[in-house]
C-alpha cells in the first residue's frame, strides 16, 4: 500500500538534522550560544600553533623587556603591542591562553575518556553479573564518593609522585593528572551504567541473545552498551566541565602541570601573584577563558540532559 507514495529514503545527515535532538537544539538559544562558545574555544585550542602570534614555550622568541605590557598598549621599551598584554616573562597572554586551553582541554577530554572507560566497564560488569561482584564494586564506589574528588586527586597525585623518578616527573605530570582526575570521577559512570544495565539485561532481546548462546562479553558490548549510552553522554559532557575545573584547581594549587607547560589553572596561579601590583590582565583573561569554557560546556550538558529526557519537556 505504502509503495505508491513511498518517499525516497532520507540519508544519514538528513535524518540527523530531522531528529528530536536537532529540533530541540534549534529551539534553544542558550544551547546554540553554549555550543558556539565551546566550539570556538576548542577550535582555537586545537589550532593554537597556527593562530597564536607567538610561541610562548620557545624561550628563544621571548624578550624579558616585553614583560608586563598592558593590553593594547605599546611596550615602553620595545614598542611591541599585545592584544591581551604580556606576563612577567614577556609571554603574550593571548598565546599562553590558547596553549593553556589546549592543555586544559586535553587533560579534560582524556580524564573523561579514562573515567568513562573505567566506569562503563565496571558498571556493565556489576549490573550484568550482580551478586558479590556487584556488591564489592558498589561498596568501593560508595567509599570513594565519601571523599571529595579534589582530595582524592591530590592523594593519587602525591602517591604517583613518590613512584615516578624525578627525571620523568615533568613529562609524566600531565598523565598523572589525567589518571588522578579520571579515578576520582569514574563512580558516576559506573553507577548510572550499572542501573541502566540492570534494566536492559532483563529485557527480552538480551534473553534472545542468551538463548542462542551468545558470549556475555558480546551481549554486553553489542546489545547492552548502545542502549545505556544516552545518560552516559550527558554525564560525560558535564564531567568534561568538572574535569577542566578539577585540572585548573590542581594546577592552581601547584600540583598540576608544570609551569613550563602552563594550563589555564597554572596561568591563573601565575597571574594572581601580580594582581595586587596592578597587572590585572595576567589573571583576568585566563580566568575569563576558564569561566566561559566551563560554563558553556556545563550549560550544553544541562541542555543535553533535558533534550534526551522526554519526560522533562
Amino acid at each position, binding site marked *: 500500500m505504502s509503495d505508491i507514495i513511498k518517499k525516497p529514503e532520507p540519508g544519514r545527515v538528513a535524518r540527523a538534522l530531522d531528529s528530536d535532538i536537532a529540533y530541540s537544539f534549534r529551539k534553544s538559544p542558550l544551547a546554540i550560544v553554549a555550543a558556539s562558545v565551546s566550539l570556538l574555544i576548542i577550535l582555537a585550542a586545537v589550532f593554537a600553533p597556527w593562530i597564536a602570534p607567538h610561541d610562548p614555550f620557545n624561550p628563544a622568541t621571548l624578550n624579558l623587556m616585553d614583560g608586563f605590557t598592558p593590553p593594547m598598549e605599546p611596550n615602553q621599551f620595545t614598542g611591541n603591542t599585545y592584544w591581551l598584554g604580556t606576563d612577567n616573562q614577556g609571554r603574550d597572554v593571548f598565546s599562553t591562553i590558547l596553549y593553556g586551553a589546549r592543555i586544559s582541554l586535553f587533560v579534560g577530554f582524556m580524564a573523561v575518556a579514562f573515567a568513562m572507560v573505567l566506569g562503563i566497564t565496571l558498571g556493565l560488569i556489576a549490573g550484568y553479573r550482580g551478586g558479590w561482584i556487584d556488591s564489592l564494586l558498589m561498596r568501593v564506589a560508595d567509599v570513594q564518593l565519601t571523599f571529595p574528588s579534589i582530595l582524592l586527586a591530590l592523594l593519587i597525585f602525591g602517591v604517583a609522585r613518590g613512584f615516578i623518578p624525578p627525571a620523568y616527573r615533568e613529562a609524566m605530570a600531565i598523565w598523572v593528572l589525567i589518571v588522578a582526575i579520571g579515578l576520582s570521577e569514574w563512580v558516576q559512570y559506573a553507577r548510572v551504567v550499572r542501573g541502566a544495565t540492570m534494566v536492559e539485561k532483563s*529485557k527480552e532481546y538480551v534473553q534472545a541473545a*542468551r538463548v542462542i548462546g551468545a558470549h556475555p562479553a558480546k551481549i554486553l558490548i553489542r*546489545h547492552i552498551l548502545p*542502549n545505556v549510552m544516552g545518560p552516559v553522554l550527558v554525564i560525560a559532557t558535564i564531567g568534561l566541565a568538572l574535569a577542566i575545573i578539577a585540572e585548573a584547581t590542581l594546577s592552581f594549587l601547584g600540583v598540576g602541570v608544570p609551569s613550563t607547560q602552563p594550563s589555564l589553572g597554572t596561568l591563573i596561579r601565575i597571574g594572581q601573584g601580580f594582581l595586587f601590583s596592578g597587572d590585572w590582565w595576567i589573571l583576568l583573561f585566563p580566568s575569563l577563558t576558564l569561566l566561559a569554557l566551563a560554563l558553556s560546556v556545563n550549560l550544553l550538558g544541562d541542555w543535553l540532559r533535558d533534550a534526551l529526557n522526554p519526560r522533562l519537556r
Partner: protein
Amino acid sequence: MADVLLSVEGLTRRFDVSKPWLNRVIEREERQFLTASESVSFEIKRGETFALVGESGSGKSTIAKMIVGLLEPSAGVIKFDGQEMDFASGAAMRTLRRRFQMIFQDPFASLNPRWRVDDIIAEPIRTFGLLRGAEISNEVGRLLDLVGLSAADGTKFPHEFSGGQRQRIAIARALSSKPEFIVCDEPTSALDVSVQAQILNLMRDLQDEFGLTYLLISHDLSVVRHMANRIGVLYLGRLVEVAESKRLFTDPQHPYTRMLLDAVPDLALSGRRRMPVTGEIPNPINPPSGCTFHPRCPKVMDICKTQNPRDFPTATGTAACHLLSQEAAVSGTD
C-alpha cells in the same frame, strides 16, 4: 508413530525468596522458597504443538525458560532428541542450541532498538557461523519474505514497525538458525486481537513448511485450541492434566481444567451451564497441603486435603485428581 523430540522429567525450580541473612536471624524466620515448578514431566513429539496453559503465576514461563537455558532447573532432566541438555557445557551445547529457538511475548522488548532488522535476524546466523558474507543478506531477505515482510525492510529499525510486524521479525530471527523446535512464550498476548490470528496462522504455515515442533505457552484457551495438538494444564507449578486438544476441550477430567473451560466467555450463547472460576491461585510460597487445588475445588473430598494425587491415566493422557482413582476403583477398570 512420531518420535519424541523433547522430554522433560521431574523439572523443578525453586526461587529463594528469603529475607537477608541478618533479618532471618533477628526475626527468627526460616529460609523461604517459592516453588514455581514442581516435578513437571511431559514429552513433545516431533512435529506437534504442545501447549502449556495456566493462570498467571502457574509457572508456565518458568518452565519455558528452563527448557531454553535461561533459568537453571533446581532438579530434573531435559532431554532434546535423546541428548540431555547441560547448559554449563559450552561446546557440547553449541550444536544443540542451534536446533531450538524462542519467540518472546513482547515484540517491543524482544528486538534491540539500536539494531537494524537485518542484523537482528542475522544474529543467530552469525553466532552459529552458519553462513558468511553476501549469503547472509540473501538469507535475511528470504526470511523476511517468508514471514510476510519485504526484503527492503531489513535496513529499518524496529521502532518503524507495528507490533504484529515486529513479531514477524522475531519469528524470522527464530527461524534463521533453521531450528527444529521453537518455544513460543505467549507469542500473541501483546498483540491486537486482529493481528493475533495472522501471527498464529503464520506460525502454523511455517510449522507445516519446515516440520517445526512448538512448545506453546499461553493463558488464552482460544489460542491454544487453534494451535495445539496436545495440551498440558498447569496449576501452581504442577501439571494437573495432559490430554489431546480435542479431548481436553470436550471432556476435561480435572476439575481445574473444567473450571478454566467454563470461564471462557460463551459468545454463541448456547445456554450451557457454567461454573465460574472461584478463588485465586494460592501463594506459591505456602501452597495448600495435599492437592494444591483443593481450596478451590468444587468436588473436594477428605483425601484431597492430605494426600497429593498421583497422575492417573485418562483416555488420551493423564490427570492428577483423586476423583479418577475413585472412578477407577468403582468401575474396576482404568
